[in-house]
């Protein structure tokens, strides 16, 4: 038998009964570390498990992100929930099924080949002989390590996988309570935290008694630069927070950069250069011309619609935390470290929260709640404010990308150079050393802010998708890593892929224009990968792209393409824009190849949402500051795309049931940004290289 390479999740948690349990009421519980963020993972993983076990979806329940029950599966991040979490679940269920079939064969004295399973009932074909998972469960021991030896079903045998099963969590979400924000614990009080006005602020004076005297206030906790309070009623907590703001004075320093333009300040900051990738000899002999351009993206906020929230209970040194974290086990260990208790004295139970597909304030507010629960001796719900979420949750790192290329006499690119300036794109709790939780840095004594460490290749952080998929014989990709960051950053959907793909695909368009070649044809001339070619050809066909098509001075179309992380889903996007007083995206076509598709409608929803979110980033979003403070603190000062700017979207999915599933939740972001910028050029002949593409910037680019 050949050894099977187990997915990381199964290596971490190999014991099968940590993945699957048959319950006395003839239901099945499956356990996952991958949590629902709005991407439909709960339904998709249930489909995978139910299909492999041959039980109906109605009988199967998923327990996700609960440190007392679920396997530790790192974070729900990086478009890896199907690729890794789903495939671990598939292998675990295949092995469980195989163990039960062997047991049934023994008890019924038949060969495994004579057995069939339907909705958990195991029968001998052509006879009345039957048993079931639940009948056999007491005698089949799942307290054994997965070997990966049981082959999962062939794609042709899948009944649920590949079907658009409706999301299982939606009915609750359209009728009332559904989120961590909506839960109550007996005796619970309402907590708020007064954050410092800026990153540099130090508390100079605070009149805590002025807050303690207010109606309903139960506790005020002051520790270093951390000020938290609890009150009996929520409006009392809100009033106490206002009073606390007036009762605090802070010393601040003017440490923020003089400009918010990444292009101007990022490359001036101290950085450390490293080579990401090099191939070929680097000789440009024989090349006819050289082009170069510089692109940038600003800091972008996660900006969940619901500010982060957590509930905490503290009882004799033990903590229970209800949280919308993307990494329950990591959060558990970090909380234990800050609270000074053993890891198993902290339970973190995932509950759904407001989405954004990135590292928002979810983990930070969990520590706030734990600290306040311990201080006031009662369960606490802490709710962040809109301002907290925009000004204090980590945001996506700014980036500058300079690209240069040399063309030979036949207009083929013979040399490609890509240079990045950015910070880390991940600073999640549990990533790297130290503690990555906001209150831990503010309390006294503070935990030091740990050094930044970006995601290494082959997936990369700032350098994600910096290696072009195109066949350029000579390439050099470099990353100037800026360790210090003026504002707090961590993982925003797609990490550096957004800016790298925006730069590569904008530049490919610029070169195609310079060479007077249709941009799609120009890309295909440099692209051998068959699946990459097919998504580009498919989107061109869906959009009825005409060779060399030109905009009319108002409307135009453009293409963007990438394979996410150079190893996950392929996505090509054509955007149509209309430029009047503002730039509007009217229509978008996308083609995506995500290998085997578990839930086609769920995939389409992710692609559509990824496109809309990326349009919002591309057209509108940028965190602003003055020398002292972040100024983006409300929807007025941090606008996002509104409903009146909704484009039409058509998604074509290339189905490849025989291929492994490829992570797809983040694949549309970069291609969309490039498609919009290329469409703007196609419409007006104006090249805008610095995001966001606001009317001001477009006007400046026209000068």
């Amino acid at each position, binding site marked *: 038998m050949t050894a099977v390479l187990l997915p990381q999740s199964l290596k971490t948690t190999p014991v099968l009964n940590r993945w699957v349990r048959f319950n006395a009421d003839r239901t099945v519980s499956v356990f996952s570390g991958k949590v629902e*963020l*709005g*991407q*439909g993972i709960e339904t998709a993983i249930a489909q995978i498990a139910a299909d492999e076990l041959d039980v109906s979806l109605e009988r199967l329940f998923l327990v996700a992100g609960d440190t007392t029950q679920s396997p530790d599966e790192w974070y729900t991040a990086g478009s890896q929930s199907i690729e890794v979490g789903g495939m671990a679940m598939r292998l675990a269920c295949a092995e469980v099924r195989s163990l039960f079939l062997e047991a049934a064969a023994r008890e019924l004295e038949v060969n495994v080949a004579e057995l069939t399973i339907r909705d958990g009932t195991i029968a001998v074909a052509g006879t009345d002989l039957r048993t079931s998972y639940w009948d056999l469960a007491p005698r089949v021991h799942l307290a054994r390590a997965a070997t990966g030896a049981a082959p999962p079903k062939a794609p042709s045998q899948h009944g649920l996988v590949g079907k*658009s099963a*409706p*999301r299982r*969590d*939606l*009915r609750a*979400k*359209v*009728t*009332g*309570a*559904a*989120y961590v*924000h*909506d839960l109550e614990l007996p005796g619970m009080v309402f907590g708020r935290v007064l954050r410092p006005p800026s990153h540099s602020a130090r508390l100079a004076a605070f009149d805590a008694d002025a807050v303690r005297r207010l109606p309903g206030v139960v506790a005020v906790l002051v520790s270093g630069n951390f000020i938290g309070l609890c009150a009996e*009623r*929520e*409006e009392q907590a*809100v009033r106490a927070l206002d009073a606390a703001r007036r009762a605090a004075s802070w010393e601040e320093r003017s440490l923020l950069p003089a400009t918010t333009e990444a292009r101007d300040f990022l490359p001036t900051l101290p950085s450390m250069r490293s080579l990401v990738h090099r191939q070929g000899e680097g000789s440009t002999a024989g090349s006819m011309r050289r082009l170069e351009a510089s692109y940038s993206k600003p800091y972008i906020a996660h*900006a*969940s*619609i*619901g*500010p982060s929230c957590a509930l905490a209970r503290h009882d004799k040194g033990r903590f229970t935390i209800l949280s919308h974290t993307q990494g329950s086990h990591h959060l558990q260990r970090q909380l234990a470290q800050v609270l000074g208790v053993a890891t198993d004295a902290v339970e973190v139970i995932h509950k*759904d*929260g*407001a*989405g*954004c*597909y990135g590292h928002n304030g979810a983990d930070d507010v969990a520590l706030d709640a734990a600290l306040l629960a311990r201080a006031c001796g009662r369960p606490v719900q802490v*709710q962040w*404010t*809109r301002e907290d979420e925009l000004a204090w949750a980590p945001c996506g790192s700014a980036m500058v990308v300079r690209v240069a290329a040399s063309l030979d006499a036949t207009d083929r690119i013979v040399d490609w150079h890509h240079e990045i300036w950015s910070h880390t794109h991940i600073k999640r709790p549990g990533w790297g050393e130290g503690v990555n939780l906001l209150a831990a840095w503010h309390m006294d004594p503070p935990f030091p802010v740990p050094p930044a460490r970006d995601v290494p290749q082959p997936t990369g952080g700032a350098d994600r998708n910096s290696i072009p998929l195109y066949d350029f014989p000579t390439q050099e990709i470099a990353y100037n890593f800026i360790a210090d960051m003026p504002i707090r950053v961590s993982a925003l959907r797609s990490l550096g892929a957004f800016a790298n793909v925006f730069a590569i695909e904008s530049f490919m368009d610029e070169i195609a224009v310079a060479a007077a070649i249709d941009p799609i044809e120009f890309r295909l001339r440099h692209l051998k990968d068959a699946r990459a070619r097919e998504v580009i050809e498919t989107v061109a066909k869906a959009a009825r792209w005409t060779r060399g098509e030109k905009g009319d001075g108002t409307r135009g179309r453009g293409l963007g393409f990438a394979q996410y992380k150079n190893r996950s889903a392929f996505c090509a996007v054509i955007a149509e824009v209309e430029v009047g007083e503002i730039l509007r995206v009217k229509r978008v076509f996308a083609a995506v190849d995500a290998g085997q598709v578990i839930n086609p*409608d*769920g995939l389409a*929803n992710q692609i*559509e*949402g*990824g*496109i*809309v*979110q990326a349009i*919002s980033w591309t057209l509108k979003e940028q965190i602003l500051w003055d020398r002292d403070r972040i100024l983006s603190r*409300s*929807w*007025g000062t941090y606008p*996002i*795309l*509104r*409903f*009146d700017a*909704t*484009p*039409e*979207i058509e998604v074509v999915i290339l189905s490849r049931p025989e291929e492994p599933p490829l992570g797809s939740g983040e694949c549309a972001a970069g291609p969309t940004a490039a498609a919009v910028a290329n469409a703007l050029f196609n419409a007006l002949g104006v090249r805008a290289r610095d995001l966001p593409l606001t009317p001001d910037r477009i006007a400046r680019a026209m000068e």
Partner: protein
Amino acid sequence: MADTFKLRVNGRDCEVRAEPDTPLLYILRNDLKLKGTRFGCGEGQCGACNVLFDGNAVPSCDTPLWSAPGHEITTIEGIGGPDAGGLHPVQQAFIDEQAIQCGYCIDGIIISAVALLQREKDPSEGQIASALERNLCRCGTHVRIFRAIRAAARAMREQTKA
């Protein structure tokens, strides 16, 4: 000073005791346990806390308690669900169209849509966009939300005909 206020919420009379300037949002969520009305910004800019106030969609976060007596207030729980005799066609359409990702904004959006469809049986795209002028969605489910509202309008027109 806290005072007693008589409210009419989801067709029922109730009494609450709180400071007069308490945002209606907290009364609905914490006193009446109607949790589908959600905090988003506290400034009336995102629509997550929308309720029907005499049939109009208004943000409950900047509606003070003192202004609520004498008005008919409907939350998502009163639109449809286990306590309202089944799903409203708009809720059903959002499920049918899978017009939800994280869903945190959705109950407020459904409230805006119900208010729109009460006055406009066959709304144009422009009218739907105007009705959602004060709603925000971060997951980017916009296209499906338009589709769900159109589908709900169709279903409601057919219901009226039948």
